[in-house]
């Protein structure tokens, strides 16, 4: 299905394609202003939910590099996310007064370095052992934050810097009204406009735009990396490490690169999260989040960037959209995971290679069994 869509898309002339992408991006930016019925989340602010969705998208893109591209099972990804968030917290509020834009680069580099430090000794451990080592890493990071007063302990860090405003703090450069949907009517709500671009407390939309911009940048970087030599080396390593090594791919180096690139993106997500939140404490970095992040990647289709984005959207959005399930919503979410897994075991949007591999397998099988079937047919 997605292939048909993609083929059609690639069949279009380039300017049309670019135009379509731009329209899609514009729609994505406008989403919280439109407040579309059904899509919009009752009981929780739609802009805030969308921001969370973009954070999950970032995390999923980063984790996809580790899990989907390089085939490394990481159950402690929240550790990098935490390092990003805490670096920003420390630098902009707790121990220094840096502006956010200066702290973010430091945060992502810190996350990346911690990825190298964790990866260098442990990436030699194969398969699921790596899963538990990373799980341990995530927990160590969280518990260290709980126990060290220097990191704010259980009380956390408050007053984390917001992004700089563009334009006047009161009004921004200009104001953008939201839409209001009544019964069959659409109204323009000029009472509560979003100010472009003021990062305050109440209005979550500017943070969503910030997150969405980050997602688009990471997405473009992801496309570039994936189609480069590095991307192919990752794919080779994942498919058959020994063969790749024999062909002259330094697999360890590339695994480490994948791990630290993933950590980089995770750190970025954490940094943006901390800035929107204004306050962080260790409760935001529980093991559960590593599991949810992984669920986003796998449910969406590990290895396919569009798939993992879809997975991230579902994992972050569904529990918020269906708040009316009340205390049954975790139950419903769990059931949805089981259903998705059993109905679409390759993920919602499997990577093309998996699709290709499946077809190949089927062809091989047909070739193998072809004669039997022929004989059977003859007998009947």
């Amino acid at each position, binding site marked *: 299905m997605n292939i048909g869509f993609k083929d059609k898309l690639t069949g279009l002339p380039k300017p049309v394609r670019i135009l379509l992408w731009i329209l899609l991006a514009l729609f994505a930016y406008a989403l919280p202003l439109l407040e579309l019925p059904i899509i919009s989340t009752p009981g929780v602010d739609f802009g805030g939910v969308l921001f969370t969705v973009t954070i999950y998208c970032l995390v999923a893109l980063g984790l996809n590099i580790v899990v989907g591209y390089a085939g490394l099972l990481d159950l402690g990804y929240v550790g990098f996310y935490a390092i990003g968030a805490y670096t920003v917290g420390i630098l902009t509020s707790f121990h220094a007064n840096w502006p956010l834009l200066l702290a973010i680069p430091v945060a992502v580099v810190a996350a990346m370095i911690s990825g190298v430090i964790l990866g260098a000794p442990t990436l030699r451990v194969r398969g699921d052992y790596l899963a538990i080592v990373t799980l341990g890493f995530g927990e160590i990071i969280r518990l260290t934050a709980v*126990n060290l007063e220097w990191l704010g302990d*259980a*009380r956390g860090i408050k007053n984390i810097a917001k992004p700089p405003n563009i334009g006047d703090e009161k009004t921004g450069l200009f104001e953008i009204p939201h839409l209001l949907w*009544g019964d069959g009517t659409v109204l323009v709500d000029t009472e509560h406009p979003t100010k472009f671009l003021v990062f305050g407390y109440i209005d979550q939309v500017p943070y969503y735009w910030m997150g969405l911009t980050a997602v688009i940048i990471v997405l473009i970087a992801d496309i570039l990396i994936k189609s480069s030599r590095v991307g192919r080396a990752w794919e080779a390593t994942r498919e058959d490490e020994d063969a790749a090594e024999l062909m002259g791919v330094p697999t360890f180096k590339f695994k480490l690169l994948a791990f630290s690139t993933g950590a980089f993106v995770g750190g970025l997500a954490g940094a943006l999260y901390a800035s929107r939140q204004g306050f962080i404490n260790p409760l935001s970095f529980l093991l559960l989040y590593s599991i949810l992040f992984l669920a986003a990647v796998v449910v969406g289709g590990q290895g396919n960037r569009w798939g993992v984005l879809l997975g991230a959207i579902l994992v972050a959005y569904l529990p918020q959209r269906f708040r009316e399930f009340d205390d049954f919503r975790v139950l419903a979410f769990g059931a949805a995971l089981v259903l998705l897994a059993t109905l679409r075991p390759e993920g919602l949007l499997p990577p093309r290679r998996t699709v290709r591999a499946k077809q190949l397998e089927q062809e091989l099988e047909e070739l193998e069994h072809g004669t039997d079937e022929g004989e059977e047919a003859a007998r009947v």
Partner: protein
Amino acid sequence: MLTLGLSLTACGTTEDGDGGSDAACDLKLAFFGPETGPAAGLGKPIIQGMQLAVDEYNDDADCDVEMVKYDSQGSPDEAPSLATEVAGDESIVGVVGPAFSGEGAAAGPIFAEAGVPTVTPSGTNPGLSTNGWDTFHRALGNDATQGPAAAKYIKDTLKAASVFVIDDASEYGAGLAGIVEKDLAGAVKGTDTIQTGQTDFSTTVTKVNDAKPEAVFFGGYYAEATILIGQLRDGGYEGKFVVADGVKDPAYLDAKDAAEGTIITCPCIPDTDPAVAEFAADYEEEFSEAPGTYAAEAYDAANIFLDGIESGIDNREDLLAFVNDYDEKGITKQLKFDKTGEPADVHVYAYTVKGGAIVPEGEIK
């Protein structure tokens, strides 16, 4: 266009069925805290305490006040989006919560900016009231008032020369234990930390037995306290066990004999007061269980808002002013707030577990 927007906000944005003709009829109070998730157990008594207050009000009111629940799962993660949603719904005039200090810290600036009055029935971090949020109020004493009282009780009443201090590494427990530890300084023979959710405390028991203290103070919630005291008693510890209001929950009595003699400090009026006893009876009739931790505080918090609504207030601004000037006797304490939103007048009482019940012992002065 502007008028349209105005009329819309006046009608409220959600689909409440009663379709009240009078604007003041559509007022809502929000609960902000955990309804699901790992902290759901702590959220439930708060929800029920608030529910009871709202139901009682609605029984004789012409216009019902609606109670809406904003389930944060106790996590600061969800707090900003939920708080923004609350801020956007003008019919919500007051918030009981945020239940935990962490989510309170994340949601606080939003409520402050939107001018939504909040009264937390359970968030005890002293730092919450120092942010300059006019909207912040606390219906219970913070760690800095409960901690010294517990220390005082250990020093003056128990006259314990040696104390072992345990905390649960949570914001509440570690904060409290830290203050007790500081106040008792010389008498502290040792300290240890457990983790929330941990169930085997054997090493902590060994540590306590090794230190042979006359009293053990535990800063944390009843969930861990119940198991901890059982293991301490099984391990042969015979000294006093002192805890704070996070343990004042009927579930603590599950520890059975081990719980006997436990001293619980709490800034809440004993049920020898008829109003408190009536609340407990009503609560039990409604929910067929005894009021749990912070149920009474939630009841008080909701009643502050409900008194305001009853007096004809129909917007946040007036209600905030009303709460700031409030001075009535609640069931847990005299409900009056100082400039920072802390309860102006906190009395801490000692309770003790006797014959399978938590009975009051008297005020800690």
